[in-house]
C-alpha cells in the first residue's frame, strides 16, 4: 500500500490481495494519515488489487460511516470486474461513487 496526499485528499493505493490479514495491518496507517495530513476526503484506489474479500468491504464501510454527516467525501477508483462483482453484491455501488481512475476521482471530490 502507498499513501499520497493531494491538497486535502488522501489517496490510498491498495496493492495485491486485500483480506483480513492486510486490512488489519493498514487500517491504522490510513486513519493516522487522515489525521496527520488533516485530509478531508479519501480515495481508495484498486488499480493494483488482484483479490479482495469482504474484509475490504468492512474497511471501506467503516470510514464511509465516519464520514457520514460531514462534507467529507469517500470514493473508489480503478476497480476490477471481479472486485466490482463483490461491490455490486453487497450494494456498495449504490452508496459510494466509483471512478475509472484516481485522476477522475480527484476531479469529483
Amino acid at each position, binding site marked *: 500500500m502507498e499513501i499520497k496526499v493531494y491538497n486535502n485528499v488522501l489517496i490510498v493505493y491498495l496493492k495485491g490481495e486485500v*483480506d483480513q490479514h492486510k486490512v488489519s495491518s493498514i487500517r491504522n496507517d490510513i486513519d493516522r494519515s487522515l489525521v496527520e495530513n488533516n485530509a478531508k476526503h479519501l480515495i481508495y484506489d484498486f488499480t493494483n488489487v488482484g483479490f479482495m*474479500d469482504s474484509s475490504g468491504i*468492512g*474497511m471501506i*464501510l467503516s470510514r464511509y460511516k465516519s464520514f457520514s454527516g460531514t462534507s467529507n467525501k469517500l470514493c473508489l477508483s480503478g476497480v476490477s470486474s471481479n472486485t466490482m462483482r463483490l461491490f455490486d*453484491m*453487497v450494494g456498495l455501488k449504490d452508496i459510494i461513487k466509483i471512478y475509472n481512475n484516481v485522476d477522475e476521482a480527484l476531479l469529483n471530490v
Partner: protein
Amino acid sequence: MNFDNEVNIVFDAKSENESLARVVVVSFITPLNPTLNVVNDIKTAVSEAVTNAIIHGYDGKSGKIYMNLRLKDDILQIEIKDHGIGIENIEQVKEPLYTSKPELERSGMGFTVMETFMDKLEVLSTYKMGTTILMTKSLNTHSV
C-alpha cells in the same frame, strides 16, 4: 463416495494463512480449467470461511484449521473446520450485515458472500465445540 481427487491440509489459525488457503484451492481446481469468475468466486468464499474460523472461531487465539477439498467430475466440495467457540445462533450470523466484531471493521457480509458465490452452503456448529463450513460449487467445465 470415490472422489477423482482429494486434498487435506491443516494449518494454524493465523491471518497470514488466509492467502495460503486461497492458493491451495486455486491450485486444486486449475487442472479443470475453470473460468476466472468461477476461480474468483471460490477463492473469495474460502477466504471468508477461513477468516471466520480465525477471528470468530478462535477469536484470534491459537488453533488449527482443517481444509478438505474434494472433486467429483466437475463438482468441487470444500470443508473448512475449526475447533473453536462455535456459533450459538447460526441463522443470526447468516443475516447480511450482522457482525459480532464491529471493532475489527467486519462488514458482516461473509456468509452472504459464501452463499452467493457458491452453489450450496451448509453450516454445522456446536457451541464451544467448533464449526464446519461445507460448500459446493460446479466448475461448469464438463458442460457442452
